[in-house]
């Protein structure tokens, strides 16, 4: 052993310079240094592991894995060597290998504590709960004085419970976990172990026992944080419906923490529950509880509703008596109580007046920004007449206070307060639906008025930091939403342009107002201004997890339209997050085990799964694949095609099991508050519907990939085997034929699913909504960023239908080849449908050039290009399959790769000249026309005549100057131009490549 140790020390010393080189990212140097050491001292495992690590960092994955494969057989046990190997496996995403490696090492050294803990952690990383439990128990057996190992085992069972969907399994595991934890209940060494025990009790619904622990055990009181103890206790009391005790606890809480909304809510809930019970049956004498008895003496334990009214009144009065720094919770509680009493038809003698309470709340807190958010708790629960009455009162109050303001000496502090009250009034007016009742003209007047107020409020914020929002920004913010409403009603996109301009004006004075920028992003994405969208996305510094929760805002613009540059800009941000999820999150789950933070273990495992099942991740993976095919087929050398395409394993891995997979919706749909009435807000059903639409879309794209992928594989197999697919020796089926059949059935299955998904999309409620042309449709479009995408990319949109009919054609070609029929297929036979397709996709409205229609031009062209790119791939494949077949017998030996005979090339040329090139050229004309349109557009004319904005209009004097408007419009149109130029360049390139062939 001693000798081993010294050997390892020697190794360590020798490898020190290598560590340093790797640390400095000098991997090449590290490899050279290792080679020198190996030459001198032979191939030691630690040196080889370091070499593998360095090679892996140099992206030489295969070489790295080769070394690891060889090392694996020798079963190294040295911890440093194993750690380096584990790093390599993590980098190459072979997490399972790590567990196998440590398990093998452990067989050689069965009592090695370090190896065992590492194996435990490897199982943790793989979510192998049963295995991790076993190892933890073995660790505990060998090292019984170490509590953590025992609780690692308990926690592993808890994880098994959470992962199991089978009630029977759960009913066995829960008592097991409880028994195991209970065995240690006198030996808990820290709060985490106790908390784990209490959590297990909760799983087993043993609320009484938990109460015993939280209340009686002095040990517990010492160890669990007061807040946690409070919420745990109340959770149990509520579950047990012990309302009296709960009420008592909440009151104690209210008396100490005077602004605790949860406690006030609890008091109301408990007293109403108690009231309900008392109505059912006469009250029994109180249960004898020492705490309650004590409480009775101080009168906090009384529970009649009247008592609660008084109690909350007292709390409010206490605040009023302070004369300053009022706390909101008691006043808010009073409103909540009144409303709940009304909702439950409970008549109380001294019930406070709702209107008085609302007025009081506004008088006390109306100058705070949070007032509106507080009010959202109640507005929907008030009668219309009450809201109107309240609104009128507020209006009067705000107007009067404005008059007083003007008369008195200007006090900036007071002015700001007045402004905020006015803004809150605006919010509540909008939220209660009064804006919706205005006519178009009235709305426009209101917008002008809001912009005037925005402008007039700006001087109040001259001393604000440039990172802060201007006090009067909310006026412009609401104006933006009103303009979006106007678009929804009229369908006139000019209102969206105006909305863009208003939001841009906000950025002029509040450069960091992310709310304005988010609106700009959303509208630009809707209008197809892809390039400006990505710029804005970068400006918002959306990164890390935000890329996951916010990218839906421009998903359509980024990676559904066939613009690879925009896709890469947005997607790469998200890919980093997803790539590191498995590795990083697992690492911190391990840390949580090591620190005994068991409750965080479950949370982080759920988080890891939520990210790895993200629909957005899947969507990015699928789009990346499609782009890699389109890119690969841009390569003119068909013989090298294979090197430019994703391998079968890689694409099949992404699409397999697509129809059975469930996805996580990680969109943060509440990031933009638009103050619309709740009736118009995105409902839970909307959320579900739009998400379902996303899932249909994912599956549709997946089936598209299955079809293309299997077709490409068929084509590659065919060329590889010289077309010798079906011919068999002595009637036996050869390997090629089996593979051929497999691929064809994969293709056919893909096609079937594609049909199914088209059907699902057409019958989907969101699609039905998108197909309507009335107001509801427009409203829905802006409420859901997903719907316009449906409109463009899911059939009846012709693209998918076109691809489908093309696939049908391919299916018959493939079957014919499989059945060894001779194929008399003229290339024109294929060309005709393609030209038809072109006509179908480009409808007559396409290039009519009114400004309104032109918005969609860029998107249509990109979508068109995208469709044609896909058809292009299929055409090339079919040609590969069909064309050389007739020449096979003559040049069986010669034509091992396609196409290498002059005859073949001629045929290919005819095909290309007659079909693909004309299609691209037609598309080129579209692009040129659209470009000319955007280049020639006279913005001044447009602003004056279409948008009816004159340089001398009233708003000229506000922040929304003519220049700001013009600049915003210019940005948007130049974004179209840039996109079109990129597309045009791509088409030119494609034509050049084809002409070279």
């Amino acid at each position: 052993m001693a000798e081993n140790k010294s050997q390892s020390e020697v190794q360590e010393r020798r490898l020190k310079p290598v560590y340093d080189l790797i640390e400095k990212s000098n991997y090449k140097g590290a490899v050279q240094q290792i080679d020198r050491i190996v030459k001198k001292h032979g191939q030691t495992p630690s040196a080889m592991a370091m070499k593998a690590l360095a090679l892996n960092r140099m992206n030489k994955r295969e070489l790295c894995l080769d070394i690891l494969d060889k090392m694996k057989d020798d079963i190294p046990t040295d911890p440093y060597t194993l750690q380096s190997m584990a790093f390599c496996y993590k980098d190459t995403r072979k997490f399972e290998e790590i567990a196998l490696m440590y398990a093998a090492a452990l067989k050689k050294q069965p009592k090695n504590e370090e190896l065992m803990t590492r194996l435990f952690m490897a199982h943790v990383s793989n979510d192998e709960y049963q295995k991790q439990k076993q190892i933890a128990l073995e660790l505990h057996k060998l090292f019984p004085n170490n509590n953590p190992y025992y609780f690692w085992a308990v926690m592993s069972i808890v994880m098994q419970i959470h992962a199991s969907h089978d009630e029977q399994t759960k009913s066995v595991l829960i008592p097991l976990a409880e028994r195991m934890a209970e065995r240690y209940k006198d030996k808990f060494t820290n709060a985490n172990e106790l908390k784990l025990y209490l959590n297990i009790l909760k799983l087993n619904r043993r609320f009484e026992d938990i109460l015993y622990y939280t209340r009686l055990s002095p040990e517990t009181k010492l160890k669990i944080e007061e807040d946690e103890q409070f919420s745990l206790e109340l959770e149990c009391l509520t579950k047990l419906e012990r309302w009296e005790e709960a009420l008592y606890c909440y009151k104690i809480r209210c008396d100490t923490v005077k602004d605790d909304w949860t406690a006030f809510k609890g008091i109301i809930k408990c007293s109403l529950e108690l009231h309900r019970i008392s109505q059912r049956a006469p009250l029994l004498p109180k249960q004898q509880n020492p705490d309650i008895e004590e409480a009775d003496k101080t009168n906090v334990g009384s529970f009649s509703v009247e008592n609660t009214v008084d109690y909350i009144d007292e709390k409010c009065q206490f605040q009023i008596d302070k004369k300053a720094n009022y706390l909101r919770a008691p006043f808010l509680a009073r409103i909540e109580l009144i409303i709940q009493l009304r909702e439950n038809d409970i008549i109380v003698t001294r019930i406070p007046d709702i209107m008085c309470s609302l007025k009081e709340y506004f008088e006390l807190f109306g100058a705070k920004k949070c007032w509106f958010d507080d009010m959202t708790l109640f507005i929907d629960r008030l009668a219309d007449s009450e809201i109107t009455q309240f609104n009128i009162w507020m209006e009067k109050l705000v107007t009067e206070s404005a008059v007083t303001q003007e008369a008195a000496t200007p006090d900036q502090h007071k002015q700001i307060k007045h402004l905020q009250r006015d803004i809150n009034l605006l919010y509540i007016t909008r939220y209660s639906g009064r804006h919706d009742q205005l006519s178009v003209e009235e709305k426009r007047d209101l917008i002008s008025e809001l912009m005037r107020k925005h402008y007039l409020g700006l001087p109040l914020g001259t001393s604000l930091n440039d990172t802060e929002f201007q006090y009067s920004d909310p006026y412009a913010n609401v104006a933006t939403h009103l303009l979006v409403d106007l678009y929804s009603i009229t369908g006139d996109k000019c209102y969206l342009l105006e909305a863009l301009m208003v939001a841009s004006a906000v950025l002029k004075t509040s450069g960091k107002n992310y709310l304005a920028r988010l609106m700009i992003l959303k509208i630009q994405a809707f209008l197809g201004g892809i390039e400006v969208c990505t710029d804005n996305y970068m400006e918002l510094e959306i990164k890390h997890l935000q890329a996951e929760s916010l990218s839906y805002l421009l998903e359509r613009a980024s990676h559904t339209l066939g613009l690879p540059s925009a896709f890469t800009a947005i997607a790469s941000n998200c890919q980093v997050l997803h790539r590191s999820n498995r590795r990083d999150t697992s690492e911190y789950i391990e840390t949580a085990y090591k620190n005994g933070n068991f409750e965080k273990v479950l949370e982080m495992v759920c988080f890891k799964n939520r990210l790895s099942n993200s629909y957005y991740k899947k969507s990015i993976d699928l789009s990346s694949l499609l782009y890699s095919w389109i890119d690969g087929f841009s390569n003119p050398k068909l013989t090298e095609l294979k090197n430019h395409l994703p391998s079968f394993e890689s694409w099949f891995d992404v699409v397999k099991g697509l129809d059975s997979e469930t996805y996580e919706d990680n969109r943060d749909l509440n990031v933009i508050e638009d103050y619309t009435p709740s009736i118009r807000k995105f409902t839970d059903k909307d959320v579900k519907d739009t998400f379902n639409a996303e899932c249909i879309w994912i599956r549709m794209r997946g089936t598209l990939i299955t079809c293309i992928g299997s077709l490409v594989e068929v084509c590659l197999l065919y060329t590889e085997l010289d077309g010798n697919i079906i011919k068999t020796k002595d009637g036996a089926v050869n390997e090629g034929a089996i593979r051929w059949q497999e691929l064809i059935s994969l293709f056919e299955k893909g096609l079937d699913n594609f049909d199914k998904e088209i059907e699902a999309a057409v019958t989907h409620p969101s699609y039905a909504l998108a197909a309507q042309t009335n107001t509801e449709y427009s409203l829905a479009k802006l409420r859901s960023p997903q719907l316009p995408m449906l409109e463009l990319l899911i059939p009846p949109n012709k693209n998918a239908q076109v691809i489908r009919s093309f696939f049908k054609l391919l299916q018959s070609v493939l079957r014919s080849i499989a059945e060894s029929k001779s194929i008399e297929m003229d290339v024109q036979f294929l060309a005709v449908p393609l030209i038809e397709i072109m006509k179908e996709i480009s409808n007559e409205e396409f290039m009519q050039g009114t400004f309104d229609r032109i918005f969609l031009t860029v998107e249509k062209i990109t979508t068109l290009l995208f469709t044609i790119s896909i058809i292009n791939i299929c055409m090339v494949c079919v040609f590969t399959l069909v064309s050389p077949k007739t020449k096979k017998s003559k040049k069986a030996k010669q034509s091992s790769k396609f196409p290498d005979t002059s005859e073949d090339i001629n045929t290919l040329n005819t095909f290309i000249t007659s079909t693909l090139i004309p299609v691209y050229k037609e598309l080129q004309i579209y692009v040129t026309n659209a470009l000319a349109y955007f280049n020639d557009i006279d913005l001044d004319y447009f602003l004056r005549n279409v948008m009816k904005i004159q340089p001398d209009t009233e708003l000229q004097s506000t922040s929304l100057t003519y220049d700001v408007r013009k600049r915003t419009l210019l940005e948007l149109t130049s974004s179209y131009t840039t996109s079109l130029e990129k597309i045009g360049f791509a088409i030119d390139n494609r034509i050049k490549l084809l002409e070279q062939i």
Partner: protein
Amino acid sequence: MTIYRPFTCDDFFKYNNINLDSLTENYGIPFYLSYISQWPEYFRIAESASGKLVGYIMGKSESKRGVDDWHGHITAVTVSPDYRKLGIGASLIKFLEDVSEKKRCYFVDLYVRASNAIAVGLYEKLGYVVYRRVLGYYSNPGQPDEDGLDMRKSLSRDKDKMFMIPVTHPVSADDVT
């Protein structure tokens, strides 16, 4: 009024209205997870009555190797724009100080951009003093580095407030990391 509770991993998906603020650093997930897995008791979120996430504090307790300076550290504290001036930041900081008291820390410290006068003012109001200026502590993309202020507040264990005696000369960023 605000509801305070432990930060959970699900909050990552809903904290945009806090983290989109330009002065709030939006860290990579591993960074947050390292805090959640090691110091969950120091990571707390504030929620409005209607359920919106409005602010959070993230911190830890540590001591420099070989130095007896066991202390709490505020890594991030932030409140979204509409919920400022309601005492939420102060409550979050008070919470972190209480946790640090229980852990027998000598003091609590934090770093703040020298230009962020509002934050510096708030910390001073809460009893923090500028312990030292750290040259070029913050890097700004495309702009010169910015100095950071290392601010401290002694807890009850540091009776004589020895840890709050300011260092007279600024130090370089390398000296503190």
